[in-house]
């Protein structure tokens, strides 16, 4: 089986977010970037586990600037066999990210495309669904477990108020969340190997713009927190009732 795992680059979870160029561009000064956690911990590690169990190839892919090569190398250090960077500028729309990944997956005969459930940067949950549509494949989103038996995937997924188990026959696209696997750290051998495994760089194909960013802004802080003591609990409940009107 051939697994294609999408790896995106995001600001570290504790990064302070700010913008520049009249609030039209992300200000990356002083920001540390990491692999998107759900891509790294769940999508990548589960693909590696399945490959280790029954053979195949795990390729990691990113659409972004040349510098993103280092995140793909980190993914290889964790265990991926090879990597592909589709070179594009930082703000490429998800429509074209998905279209280019789908094209690569199709032309190179991948069976499964796996993403994290969302990026912690744009929180859009859209890449997997778009890729699946471009490839005309089933898409199971926010999966918590994935077993593979021959051609048949058994996939667990949380639904509102419970859980369901699905069976998908053949190729599909999966977005992964907590439960799918446990984070894996790169070992020394992996880090050494990362430098020597293949990493292809290919150009992106773009078309008409679909969505433009007109502005970014930092979320305004909440007003002051109103404090109550242990003896003022009745007043607190009254405030929730008649001021906030939430209960």
């Amino acid at each position, binding site marked *: 089986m051939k697994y294609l795992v999408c790896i995106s680059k995001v600001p570290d979870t504790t990064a302070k977010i700010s913008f520049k160029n009249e609030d039209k561009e992300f200000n990356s000064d002083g920001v540390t970037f990491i692999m998107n956690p759900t891509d790294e911990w769940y999508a990548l590690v589960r693909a590696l586990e399945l490959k280790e169990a029954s053979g195949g190839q795990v390729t990691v892919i990113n659409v972004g600037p040349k510098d993103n090569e280092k995140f793909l190398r980190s993914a290889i250090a964790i265990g991926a066999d090879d990597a592909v960077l589709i070179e594009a500028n930082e703000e490429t729309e998800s429509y074209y990210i998905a279209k280019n990944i789908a094209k690569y997956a199709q032309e190179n005969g991948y069976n499964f495309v796996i993403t994290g459930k969302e990026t912690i940067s744009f929180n859009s949950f859209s890449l997997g669904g778009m890729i699946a549509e471009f490839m005309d494949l089933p898409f199971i989103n926010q999966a918590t477990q994935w077993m593979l038996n021959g051609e048949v995937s058994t996939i667990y997924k949380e639904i509102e108020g419970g859980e369901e188990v699905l069976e998908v026959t053949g190729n599909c696209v999966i977005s992964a969340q907590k439960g799918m696997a446990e984070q894996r750290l790169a070992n020394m051998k992996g880090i050494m190997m990362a430098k020597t495994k293949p990493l292809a760089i290919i150009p992106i194909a773009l078309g008409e713009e679909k969505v433009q960013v007109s502005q970014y802004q930092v979320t305004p802080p909440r007003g002051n927190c109103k404090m109550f003591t*242990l003896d003022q609990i009745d007043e607190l409940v009254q405030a929730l009732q008649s001021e906030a009107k939430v209960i």
Partner: protein
Amino acid sequence: MVLVFLESSNHKIKKNSLEVITYGKKIAKANNGKLIGIHFGALDDSDSCNKYGLDKLFILNEPVFEVFDSRLYTKAIKAVYLAENCQFAFFGFNLNGKALSARLAAALDGGLVNGANSFADLNGGFKVQKTIYSGKAIATYQIVAQHKILSIASNTVSIEENPSTCEVVNFNSGIAASEVKVKKIKEEKVAGEIPLAEADLVVSGGRGLKGPENWGMIEDCAKIIGAATACSRAVADAHWRPHHEHVGQTGGAIAPNLYIAVGISGAIQHLAGVSNSKTILVVNIDPEAPFFKAADYGVVGDAFEVMPKLNEALKKAKGV
């Protein structure tokens, strides 16, 4: 024309779908167009259809739609969308809505904003906002593509009545049984619990509660006000609570009307999943806990003293 994807429970249109209808109706009116609903499976809710402003409702009830498969649903939605000359398609920002909106955007070469949380600004285009960087920032997007597709966060608009006469159409997609690739083996619903993702009120506990045996006061509180329960990652990782209760950057993201956080420090990754809540109440023994900076109401005190008192006061207030 505006197409809205509707979900139901017990044959009644869900609250989040009614919000999507209200949103869609406003856009339809502004464009002198009609509002068209699409629903998979039988529905027995003509009251809501007429009351909230649907002009037409497509019902798709073929066996191929029995199990949710975003691939087949999208094929059918696209067919209705094109047949009705739509320019807009709106979904709820929930598990199925997110998968369908993304697929439809790809299928129509449209422009997508998943998680829109403002009403669209129609002056000189179509602009909507959504939160990004896990609540730390807000982006305003202009959809320039002809086909405009949104999934809409809950509580973005309040449901409004808009009386209409809704025509019901039973639509046959003609999708062959051999196209079905997704089978459901099992479904387990936790009985009696309020699903976290849809809850208006949430009571959440952190490591400050010291152990799973102390969750009684959290559950009592939830019961009194009709809330769902949640927890921090530290608590889920320690197996004090089930994983589906974990909220935050790497758990679920929620936006209830009220979030009560008890014994949770308010780490930035936790806030990422809850900062879109309308009102936040924090109970923490440490006056310096970072969560107070992100809260509307706070009590500095020992949860083991505060919660019993709070529960008594809530009981009185709710008359239960």
